[in-house]
């Protein structure tokens, strides 16, 4: 066997291996960079979306607390409704899993109805009249996607 042939082959393999190694090193860095960027972008969307969706939960909690504190001012028939409304919004799921999200929707729908009943009973509909407008003013328009459902 010619010794120079052996040298040549080893040299070529080494070059190819090095090229592949460098490429992979760069690839990994590029992938890590864009993965991190997407993770950050996802977090921003997550913050915005959840913030807007949960404003109404807090708003209802605030109303319920104030009504409860001043219960003496109102007809006692309202207290039962307040307890029920409080249950609907107090431990509402705050994660983005499928079942939690559908539970959220269910509770919000019930809570909206209950809220209307209470506001009518205590003759304070002005507190909830522009609720959705307030949520929009404070939470802004979602910039997540044309179809919000795509995100879930």
């Amino acid at each position, binding site marked *: 066997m010619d010794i120079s042939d052996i040298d040549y082959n080893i040299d070529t393999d080494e070059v190819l291996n090095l090229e592949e190694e460098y490429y992979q090193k760069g690839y990994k860095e590029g992938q890590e960079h864009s*993965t991190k960027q997407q993770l950050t972008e996802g977090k921003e*969307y997550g913050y915005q979306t959840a913030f807007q969706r*949960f*404003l109404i939960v*807090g708003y209802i*909690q605030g*109303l319920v*607390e*104030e009504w409860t504190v001043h219960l003496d001012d109102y007809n006692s028939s309202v207290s039962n409704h307040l307890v029920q409304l409080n249950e609907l919004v107090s431990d509402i799921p705050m994660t983005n899993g499928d079942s939690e999200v559908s539970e959220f929707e269910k509770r919000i729908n019930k809570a909206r109805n209950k809220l209307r009943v209470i506001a009518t009973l205590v003759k304070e509909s002005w507190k909830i009249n522009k609720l959705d407008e307030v949520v929009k003013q404070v939470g802004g328009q979602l910039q997540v996607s044309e179809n919000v459902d795509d995100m879930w």
Partner: protein
Amino acid sequence: MPCEGECSCSKKGTTDVQISSSANKDSNDDVWDEDRSVSSNADIQRSHEKQGYLDGLSHAKESSLQAGFDTAFPSGAQLGIAVGKILGKLRSHNDEALFIQGKQELNIGKIMDKKYFNDELELAGEHEIISKWQKIVENLK
């Protein structure tokens, strides 16, 4: 020897790298010359790493966007609830001017200001604006 895409990486024709030192005419043909083998090696490294980097950039791990979304969601929910509660209480006190001021200062753009979050977008301690308005609401009673 220009890269013709016959090397082990997948991109063709985008590099023009001196792989060996044989193209250098101003010296002998000693391929083991340390200086030149170092510099050509650095060129190869740079071009292949760069190509790999560019290819890697467009291949972010698929679930990362959703993972970020799910991670931040509960924190966003907590902020939303805190702000909503303040507004609900403000509303209950029927002070229109204060309610309008609250809506402006507690707007999502102000709450989500980067200065309140660390590099991982986690809330660093309590939120200044929210704490301020929680105190305002407490003092209404």
